[in-house]
């Protein structure tokens, strides 16, 4: 009696929104992670302080609160975002704060001797960072970035709070329209898991590419 094909279509539409959020959120998170992660290692106190505040704030408060602020409180400050923008902003900034620590940790994990080799070869600070440290750090970051992307994917489920029709939200809609609980939630879980598998597969492939001929670098 229920028109399941149509409702699965709705769930898939939700999956599209989830994918869109995950992709755009990841891009923002990546940018923030590098800015703040390198900011925390800056020589300048002010830069360090800003980066630290950003990181501690966004890691310290819950994603729910951040989402609510982005969506309901920012408009009072004259900045009205669409639900998608607010979702991307909150997710990106939140995951970016975690990513920043990954960037910082990875940069620090590159041995002191590599920095010293840069000095001995008279490379400037930025030259050494760009050509020697970051390429090695990137490989260390990659697996954790993969995990972060999966975390972000899962966190998109909370955007239903701001009425964005993502996968979880559509599952809820289908549930109340059809009266069936098991089918929409199980489908949603399977879709989430498939997306997570795709992410980790992608990251592993990338990692293998980058690690080629690099047994010396810790992976």
């Amino acid at each position: 009696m229920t028109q399941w094909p149509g409702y699965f279509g709705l769930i898939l539409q939700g999956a599209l929104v989830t994918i869109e959020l995950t992709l755009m959120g990841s891009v923002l998170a990546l940018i923030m992670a590098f800015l703040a992660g390198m900011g925390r290692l800056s020589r300048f106190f002010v830069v360090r302080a800003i980066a630290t505040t950003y990181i501690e704030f966004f890691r310290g408060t819950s994603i729910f609160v951040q989402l609510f602020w982005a969506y309901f409180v920012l408009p009072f400050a004259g900045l009205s975002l669409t639900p998608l923008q607010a979702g991307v902003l909150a997710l990106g900034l939140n995951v970016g704060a975690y990513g920043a620590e990954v960037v910082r940790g990875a940069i620090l994990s590159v041995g002191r001797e590599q920095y010293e080799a840069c000095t001995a070869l008279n490379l400037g600070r930025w030259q050494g960072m760009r050509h020697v440290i970051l390429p090695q750090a990137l490989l260390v970051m990659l697996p954790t970035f993969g995990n972060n992307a999966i975390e972000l994917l899962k966190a998109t489920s909370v955007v239903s709070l701001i009425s964005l029709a993502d996968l979880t939200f559509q599952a809820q809609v289908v549930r109340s329209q059809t009266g069936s609980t098991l089918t929409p939630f199980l489908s949603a879980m399977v879709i989430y898991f498939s997306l997570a598998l795709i992410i980790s597969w992608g990251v592993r492939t990338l990692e293998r590419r980058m690690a080629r001929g690099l047994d010396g670098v810790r992976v």
Partner: protein
Amino acid sequence: MPTPTIKVDAISKSFGAFKVLDGLSMQVMPGEKLALIGPSGSGKTTILRILMTLEKIDGGHIEVDGEQLYHMERNGQLLPANERHLAKMRQKIGMVFQLFNLFPHKCVMDNVTLAPMLTKGVARAAAEKRAMELLDMVGLADKAKAMPAQLSGGQKQRVAIARALALSPKIMLFDEVTSALDPELVEEVLNVMRKLAAETDMTMLLVTHEMGFAHDFADRVLFFDRGRIVEEGKPDEIFRHPKQERTQSFLKKIIAAGHRI
């Protein structure tokens, strides 16, 4: 008498409460080959690292090629050196590390050409030509495209030497460059260094536990203990007829442990 290439004047250096160098002074003449020996923890590595500006000094002065290393003269005043001054001074100095410190993500050729291209703006073609000459010199012309992980320890160390030479420094610092190598691989590195000593007029400072090599290689030997130079002289004097008791006991232990001098 010509200006010394390196003139170290009463420098001191502490790590926390621990005084590693204590009013150390020394001079190195142009083209001189110097061996620094002494017990573990006596400050040999530290003085090399200070010359390479990898550590700061707490007091004293260092002149390299007649110019202050850690200070700049401005209107007759001595100010602490800024990064630009240090970068200028570093052009004169190259260093080879105990653990090679090659860039693991770059092939041998890129390891050697990176610094000349970035710091001196040498064009890629020119940099690669010079790199091939250097790799040839250290006997690794055929490994230009290899990654460091594919090389043996001795090969890595020879690449590290070529990399340091690519910047054509006046002074080369070697810190226990063979002590991380398998005994069988030591010789190939020492051969390169012998060749270097014979063919160039670079000033060379060498920290080593290979007393035999120090003996053959050096014009002068400095014996370090607890951040001071306890004894110095020609290799034969130091190794055959050490005057100080500390030197004597050190050499005795080394010989007992099975090393040839």
